[in-house]
């Protein structure tokens, strides 16, 4: 075992040589005389490898965990973003459809404008006002009044949405989290 020359910061050799250091946490070699085999097994190459594998496994597992969590986070964020995009697209579609409905309703109303009906009847269909009225007595009830469009009928009140969760309240007190 060769000694390793040491120097002080200023380059002056030390008076007493230091003991050689083992690399890392490698156990110091022991003899049978100093310690019984039964009390402490003699480290073998396999033991070292096993410890190294174990350390590697743990590190890998940790990294994998971080990666999985990160991936999950990314997937979740992507999913939320995609869903949000879909929601907004559907909202836009709903707006367009609502606009179409309103336009169609107004067109239906305009097509039953009394002046227009009269004009169509007299010009396009060639109708004329009757000279004599014939009244027929009958017991049929009069048609019911047209009800309001369904969209104006008040909907049933829904239960209130659930309140803010406790963890959201906790997060909200942290600056920058709300």
């Amino acid at each position: 075992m060769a000694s390793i020359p040491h120097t002080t910061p200023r380059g002056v050799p030390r008076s007493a040589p230091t003991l050689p250091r083992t690399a890392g946490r490698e156990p110091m070699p022991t003899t049978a005389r100093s310690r019984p085999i039964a009390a402490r097994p003699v480290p073998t190459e396999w033991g070292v490898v096993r410890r190294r594998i174990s350390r590697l496994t743990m590190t890998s597992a940790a990294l994998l965990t971080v990666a999985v969590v990160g991936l999950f986070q990314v997937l979740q964020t992507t999913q939320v973003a995609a869903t949000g995009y879909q929601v907004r697209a559907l909202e836009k579609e709903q707006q367009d459809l609502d606009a179409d409905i309103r336009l169609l309703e107004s067109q239906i109303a305009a097509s039953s404008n009394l002046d227009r009906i009269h004009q169509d009847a007299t010009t396009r269909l060639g109708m004329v006002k009757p000279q004599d009225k014939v009244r027929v007595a009958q017991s049929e009830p009069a048609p019911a009044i047209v009800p309001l469009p369904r969209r104006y009928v008040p909907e049933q009140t829904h239960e209130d949405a659930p309140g803010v969760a406790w963890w959201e309240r906790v997060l909200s007190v942290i600056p920058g989290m709300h």
Partner: protein
Amino acid sequence: MNQSRSNNLTWRHHVMGLIVLASFVAILVHLYRVQVLDHDSYMKEAAVTRQGAITVPASRGAILDATGYPLATSVDTWDVYIDRFQWRDKVKAQEAAIGLASFLKRDAGQLAAEGLAQTAGDLLVQRSLPYDEGLKLDKLDLWGIRLVRSSVRLYPGGDLAGQLIGYVGRDGAGLWGVESDFDSMLRGKDGWVTTERDALGRPIAFSQRAERPAVEGGEVQLTIDRFMQAIVEKSLTSALAKYNAKSGSIIVMNPRTGAILAMASRPTVTLSRVDLNDPKLDALVRDRAITDLYEPGSTMKTLTTAMAIDKGLITPESSYTDTGVAKVGGYEIRNWDFSANGPQTIRQYLQKSLNTGSVWVAQRTGAETFYQYVKSFGFGEATHVGLAGEAEGQYRTPSDANWYEVDLATNSYGQGIAVTPLQMLTAVNTFANQGRLMRPYVVSKIVTSNQSRTFGPVEVRQVIQPQTAATMLKLMNDVVDGVELHGAKTPGYHVAGKTGTTLVSIPTGYDLDSTIASFVGFVPYEDPQVSVLIKIDQPSGGLNLGGQVAAPVFSEIASQIMDYLGTPPTNPATLPKTVARP
């Protein structure tokens, strides 16, 4: 080895380390101040520059008639703007101008010139672009072209009930009529969406987003029936033309409930061609049936007679002697035709509409009782129909210093007392409603996003006894059916009614050449389905009496309304042809 490295650190290293450490500490302190202490203020500043709010306009609610037909409704449109800030890029601006001009069929050069005239602000280039057209334009993705949602008010019924429905200005506020009176319910509540935007103001995808959805405007349903309204408006227009009259009003009500089924006045506004700069617009949009006062003339005789009958002072067969003149307080009051008819019953005085008769009745009633009834019939106070601008009417009473004895006499036949057509019809409706005065109403239902309110008949008070009301109804029937060739006769139906003619009051007295011809009546007499008041102002075509001008209009309207309602004829003998089917 570590020992050796640490030993190699010189004081310079320590100084540098301290500087770096101090820097990190300073950064940390600053971060703490920015992120924690001043967090809210920096957030606000950032939000101002980064976030943009988009207003989501609320759709204005519709105005429906009694059958659910939308008399006024809104459809979505787009307003097209040029974003001049983006148009600072002139190459892209020119391309966008060409694309936009092609789409809008405008001149590209003019669009580009207008858009490039300034470098800031938005330029409105097209208002109320149809919704589907806007979507097509949006897909073109033209540089610096912004579409903002808007809406346009439509009146599918055409110009029907223009004074009553009203109009909406460009700012979305109602200007008159129901549009104005119920603006807060029709308007709804605009929503907003707050999104993060980039430097060009475009929304950033997947950014933070907050929103408050728009609340749609409520729906207002009227008691007006568009079919009856159309009948009334056509009849009024043709009557004004036929009799060369200046103006006029017609009201149709359900006498039992007070619901106004049709109400029209002329001249009127044309909803399809409203000119907001027209100085005469105020006169055109005025709903004269509720805002204008007039002297009711002989239609008032029905109320005068009802008071005395209700008090048991006279009966339909009570009689007086008509000498052709009644002397009151030094004044001489004569009949409208200057006739003297001798002994006359109450029935006859009403049929002939003798002023001397009403003076005689009023004198028997007494001033105190007379004016108590006048007030009880609802004169001198608004009917609270729910529309703005309603007049209260006016008349003098014995407690007024300027009241004279002759006022009782003239008031008894409808002069010297000012009422609105709606007040008059509401008062006369008591005859068809067992003596109960009903509050007139024109809105039957309001449905908003969170509530639905229904308005029904409201009894104001019992004015006369039911027996008196029935007697008056019969007397009014005798006025029409008992007079041969009465203008209000309606084929197939017994009618109850009374004509009225009054001179037009002017600051110096009365204009002897101008009259207001009116008629108020019920049909059918046996079970009144509708009550109608016709008022034609200043007819000048040679005919100017209520019986000549207004009564025929009543007949025309009553006949059509009975057909529309499908009311079985009560006097089939007067019909040319009837087929009975079991």
